[in-house]
């Protein structure tokens, strides 16, 4: 199938297909698409190895127990699905510095990229858990259910992101 080898699909086709996937997710798994809770669970799994008493004590890990669940497998699936897509289109390539039209010390310098990915990642992880969801859980699944707090979250994600990107790149 030639279409699966294409390097990029129309964003409208991709968006439509993600919308249909969300119907199927509700129908088949009784769940909404989301990802960021799995990072909280994984952080608990790692911390459990070093300090099991603390993990038992933290209320957050009682709510989001450190275990592999439906969403954790979904996140693993994203990795596999993207790998398959990139293999089919010939885009798979090991790289550390991302190709970009917005060159900066944050993305074209090895140490700069370690800093930006680590620091940006910390803010993304902390912020997503504070907000109770990320671009998929709030931004797609929450907004389509007309959740008021998800619309506020999605607006905040892009407001913070756009202002920061305009300032730093």
């Amino acid at each position, binding site marked *: 199938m030639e279409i699966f080898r294409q390097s990029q699909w129309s964003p409208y086709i991709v968006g*439509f297909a993600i919308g249909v996937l969300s119907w199927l997710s509700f129908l088949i798994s009784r769940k909404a698409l989301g990802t960021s809770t799995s990072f909280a669970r994984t952080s608990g799994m790692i911390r459990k190895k070093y300090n099991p008493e603390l993990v038992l004590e933290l209320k957050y890990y009682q709510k989001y127990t450190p275990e592999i669940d439906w969403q954790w497998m979904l996140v693993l699936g*994203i990795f596999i699905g*993207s790998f398959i897509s990139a293999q089919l289109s010939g885009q798979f390539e090991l790289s550390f510095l991302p190709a970009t039209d917005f060159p900066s010390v944050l993305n074209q310098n090895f140490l700069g990229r370690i800093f930006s990915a680590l620091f940006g990642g910390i803010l993304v992880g902390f912020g997503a858990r504070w*907000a109770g969801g990320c671009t998929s859980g709030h931004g797609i699944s929450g907004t389509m259910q007309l959740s008021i707090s998800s619309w506020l979250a999605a607006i905040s994600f892009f407001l913070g992101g756009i202002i920061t990107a305009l300032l730093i790149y």
Partner: protein
Amino acid sequence: MTTKKAKLLKGLFTGIVFGFLLQKGGVTQYNVIVGQLRLADFTVVKIIITAIITGMVGIYFLRDKNLIELSPKNKSPLQVIPGGLLFGIGFAVLGYCPGTIVGAMGQGSLDALLPGLAGILIGSALYANFHQKFSGLINKGKFSQATLPEKLNINHWKIIFPVVAILISVLIIIELYGF
């Protein structure tokens, strides 16, 4: 096969399709995310808006037919606004979000796999400690109803149709201005 295993397999399969679509959409690329936040490339917004329109009409239709139950998040403004703004700053600095970073790893982006993933896990772990102290404060002020139609106490289609009209208008404006 146990139900637990079946559930995990369903998650894996859903994720494979999701990851395939994210990669085909280009949003697993740092440049596309930063381009969106710099307002130079509207791929991310086009995908999200189309997914919202398609998803919203479909899931409310399925719910009207009693085929599914919705699970809308109800978080307080003290969660979604400060948390969301911090997330947004990180989104711009990292150039990925929690879903697309995993897709980026799948296509070979090692900045996502090593410092990016480590950062998200550290941030999530730090939040677990923050939550221990501040959850009482930030959980205050949740909405009495999770969704807009419930809050306004009107039929959901009276919200869905105008929202779809507005979102389609946004897409038309984006196309007209050539983004």
